[in-house]
């Protein structure tokens, strides 16, 4: 089963990290990711740019409305995600705990993936 681990954190805080702090967090996360990759459980990993770079297309009307900024104005923002291959929720939670130790603060939302298409690029 594939799961998405959606990473939420207050981006005002992550944007306040100094370059050294940011590098240190990424290094710690990298160590966890490497372990996961070796075990064959790790799929795509993405870190998203700040929500100031986000654009939202509201399709609840016709024609859809394009608005600047993230979809939801929340205290914590979606800042990245992992796709992992696991046999059980418990296993995903263990992974999330490991990641959380490397990067405390915020929350992970774990969402089972219903369907996952490889892009033609990735498949070839």
């Amino acid at each position, binding site marked *: 089963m594939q799961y998405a681990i959606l990473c939420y954190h207050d981006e005002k805080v992550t944007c306040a990290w100094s*370059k050294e702090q940011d590098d240190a967090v990424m290094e710690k996360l990298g160590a966890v990711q490497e372990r996961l990759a070796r075990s064959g459980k790790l799929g795509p990993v993405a870190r998203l*740019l700040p929500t*100031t770079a986000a654009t939202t297309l509201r399709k609840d009307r016709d024609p859809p409305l394009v608005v600047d900024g993230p979809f939801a104005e929340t205290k914590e923002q979606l800042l990245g995600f992992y796709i992992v291959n696991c046999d059980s929720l418990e296993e995903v939670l263990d992974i999330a705990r490991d990641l959380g130790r490397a990067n405390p603060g915020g929350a992970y939302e774990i969402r089972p993936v219903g369907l996952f298409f490889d892009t033609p690029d990735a498949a070839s």
Partner: protein
Amino acid sequence: MTDTSWIGAVMTAARPKAMAALVRYFRDLDTAEEAYQEACLRALKSWPSNGPPRDAAAWLIMVARNAGIDSARRQRRMQPLPPEDVISDRSDMEAVAAERADGADYRDDILRLMFICCHRELPATQQIALALRIVSGLSVHQIARAFMVSDAAMEQRITRAKARIAKAEVPFETPSAVERAERVAAVAAMIYLVFNEGYTIDVAANGWRAELCEEAIRLARLLLNLFPVEPELMGLAALLLLQHARADARFDADGAAIPLDQQDRSRWNSKLIAEGLALMDKALRHRRPGPFQLQAAIAALHARAGRPEDTDWPQIALLYGALERMQPSPVIALNRAVAVSRTDGAEAALAIITPLAGALDGYFYFHGARGSFLKQLGRYHEAREAYNRAIALANTPAEARHIRQQLDSLTEAAAAPSSQQAARENDQRR
């Protein structure tokens, strides 16, 4: 959790919001700052064991407000009461829970806090120092280090700026749409000043100033967060990101500036460039160009060029032309001339800058560019004079060093018999 390094980032993130609310509440910068400091001290005691509060800004505001009131009560015994309205009891405070509200309520508060720092009576250096102290929360020592002055001198500069503001009427009413737009523009200009203070430097002399660039980017993102549909703010953030992306490639090991076309582009920060380009994409959709967007568009064209020879100089010359129409300035004309020298040759470029000689006579880059155009035209004697003038005006040892290299190459070029011919051919290739 024994590692407490996260506390600094949480406080930095909460600071603008908390200080903005406290300034509205106490209506006085110093009182707000003292109360905020007190709250931070309590946070340092409480957070490591209890973990960060769910809403750090709200926590700090509440604790700071109580601390400020306590201190006012203590002082009351020693001195006469301040006027009623100093500790605000006005209508804007009627909702005690207002501090818990999100977004819109805070927007004008934070904007006001930033706007206070760019009061038009304050000279640029005081605006920058005050913004770094009040909004960013940098220590006086950190700011002094960046400006290469003593702590005492910086303390005095900030105190003087605060005194000026105290005398001026700080507007606490909710601004009208026009006033809000004016404030946003003033704050954007101030953020650009902060960035430039960090950008125009001799890195060898002072590495701390990169911090100012990063802080300016953080402030630009903060402002864009408050006004997410304002294309000029996207342009400002994009401009800062695209310029700062080149930070690691701009200076050699000795601290000498490396011109754009000689920089190692693999050392440009691709993440910052991606963010800058994404913001420009968003800004363009609004079809409301402005000076920051135009400058960012120029920076974007440089960033998109994998090699110097891939640079879209005709487009850059056009953008500088548009910028010049929007903001007529000899410095922008000079920049346009540099772009034109790449498309139409040094002759055309020289024609653009010749009328600027009066306005830019004391400007280092004018004489440097003029020397370069003259050199390309084989007019070595005049080029030498221009370069000599540039050296005399150099702002940093690195700039002087760069011009000296140009003078050396001039000597070599003048020595080679076919140099004039070679220079012309070289010019055409560009």
